[in-house]
């Protein structure tokens, strides 16, 4: 499965469309990205607080069990029975002392070790397995687990060079620590299936200025405008990024001038119930928007007082699932909880400021599918060449950063590639 990309530019300002639609590319992504030297988001510690608590999830196409053992350690393993490949754990969540596959009742402890095989010694001395069968060699495949402020990450590379803190880097770590600065409580879940290649979504999360054009609600009601004070930051290898904006840092008149003919409707439209957009400051800074994206499968968001993680689960070349986990803080008042529940109208599959993403990705996926091998996306907003942080939010640079790291992992970098 060797892949050759005829890069038109070394700075990833041209992306061939076939990379979103190719079977070999997809298989290599599973191998070199999700099984490669990366850490993936698994869940929140608050979802499995007690010994025996478990949750099932996915890393790329691989089913994973995350559980807490009797010593309160969090462990993760592939949810695939060593016997015949069936899912050992069929429930979304629960509590158990042992994971038992229903098919032939092979059972595994909370560390993923194989502890029980029915008929291993046969029946009445007849049949069974040979004496040399070694149960210790047939446990569930383990992931290495790392936690940062209550967020659980895992990697299939037991000997990965970077710890989770190194992998996240100072920028992502700081963002996660800001969001998770005190104990959280999970408020609930949303899910959606988007019919497009998963990379379109990773790009969408890094191209932050689409928000102020595509998501008209943001602009119309002054929630996030490109004219606000803010910026985009990446880690040094451009794997992750953070977009942020400061509350009330622009004027309606600035926005009208900048958006020109796009038609800002802020004169004519107001909300009958403005509580939806109220911002209650709760961090030491005045950012009302801070959304970070972690390579390869997660995003951590704050918009006003709506807090959530988003997890991306690949479902083949043409689809992915997006799982939203909303949270508040353990010491939130009832009023604050109600406020957060009200503001989650902004996000999710039907979010007033996020519903458009699914449509944008689906139309991009549909229309780029039949493109010839020379057809490319054009990523030049914010300039070509060097991939670095910009103090202005209108740019495609972080998207080029994504492709730079992606190509490094996939072994697709052109000679003399910009990193």
């Amino acid at each position, binding site marked *: 499965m060797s892949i050759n990309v005829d890069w038109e530019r070394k700075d990833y300002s041209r992306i061939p469309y076939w990379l979103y639609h190719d079977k070999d590319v997809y298989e290599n992504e599973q191998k070199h990205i999700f099984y490669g030297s990366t850490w993936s988001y698994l869940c929140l510690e608050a979802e499995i607080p007690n010994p025996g608590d478990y949750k099932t999830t996915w890393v790329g196409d691989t089913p994973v069990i995350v559980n807490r053992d009797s010593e309160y350690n969090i462990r993760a393993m592939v949810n695939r029975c060593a016997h015949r490949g069936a899912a050992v754990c069929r429930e979304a969540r629960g509590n158990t002392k042992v994971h038992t596959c229903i098919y032939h009742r092979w059972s595994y402890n909370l560390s993923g070790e194989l502890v029980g095989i029915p008929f291993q010694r046969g029946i009445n001395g007849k049949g069974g397995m040979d004496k040399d069968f070694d149960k210790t060699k047939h446990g569930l495949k383990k992931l290495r687990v790392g936690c940062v402020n209550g967020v659980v990450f895992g990697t299939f590379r037991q000997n990965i060079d970077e710890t989770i803190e190194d992998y996240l880097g100072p920028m992502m770590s700081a963002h996660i620590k800001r969001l998770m600065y005190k104990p959280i409580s999970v408020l609930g879940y*949303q*899910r*959606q299936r988007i019919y497009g290649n998963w990379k379109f979504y990773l790009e969408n999360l890094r191209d932050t200025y689409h928000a102020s054009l*595509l998501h008209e609600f943001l602009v119309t009601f002054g929630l996030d405008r490109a004219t606000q004070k803010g910026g985009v930051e990446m880690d040094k290898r451009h794997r992750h990024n953070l977009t942020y904006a400061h509350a009330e840092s622009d004027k309606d008149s600035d926005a009208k001038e900048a958006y020109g003919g796009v038609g800002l409707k802020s004169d004519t*439209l107001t909300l009958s119930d403005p509580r939806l957009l109220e911002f209650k400051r709760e961090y030491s800074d005045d950012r009302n928007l801070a959304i970070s994206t972690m390579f390869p499968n997660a995003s951590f968001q704050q918009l006003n007082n709506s807090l959530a993680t988003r997890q991306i689960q690949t479902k083949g070349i043409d689809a992915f699932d997006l799982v939203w986990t909303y949270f508040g803080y353990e010491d939130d008042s009832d009023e604050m909880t109600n406020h957060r529940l009200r503001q*989650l109208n902004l996000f999710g599959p*039907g979010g007033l400021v996020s519903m*458009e993403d*699914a*449509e944008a990705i689906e139309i991009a996926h549909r229309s780029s599918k039949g493109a010839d091998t020379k057809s490319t996306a054009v990523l030049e907003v914010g300039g070509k060449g060097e991939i670095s942080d910009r103090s202005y939010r209108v740019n495609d640079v972080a998207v080029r950063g994504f492709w730079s790291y992606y190509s490094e992992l996939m072994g697709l970098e052109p000679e003399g590639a910009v990193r």
Partner: protein
Amino acid sequence: MISIQDRLAINDLFNDYGFFLDEERLEDWLELFIPECNYSIMPRENLELGLRVTLMLCENKDMLKDRIVSLQEANEFNIHRDKHLISNVKIQSSDNDKSFVTANYAIYQSDFEGNGSLFSFGHYDTQVTMVNGQFKFSKVMAVVDNWSIPHMLSTPI
């Protein structure tokens, strides 16, 4: 004991509910609610876990109106047509001018090229109130069984 006339009127309310949504007559749909209404779309999973996250939450008619105005003026969504099938309307209990009514729903959705699929199914958990001789909704919670939303959610369920 609820009268036959009232039963028919409650059935009509559900029929109007589906009809106005399918016809994209969202302002008419809005008038099926009282000002102090509560409208939500709830993933079945959250309901069973006792979690309160919804897919849409309007805590009064103003918020519901804001949602409609936003859909019409400030949102982009997939070009689609909905078709509601509402059945098993069951009046769970009734006292004076208040009735608790549940009904099952299925929504088929078609796109601009004439393809279609089952978009959403579940049930409505509602509270119906008599106002000036007319039944209106004071609460609608659409509990979604297939709560992993295909594509996206724009038109209310």
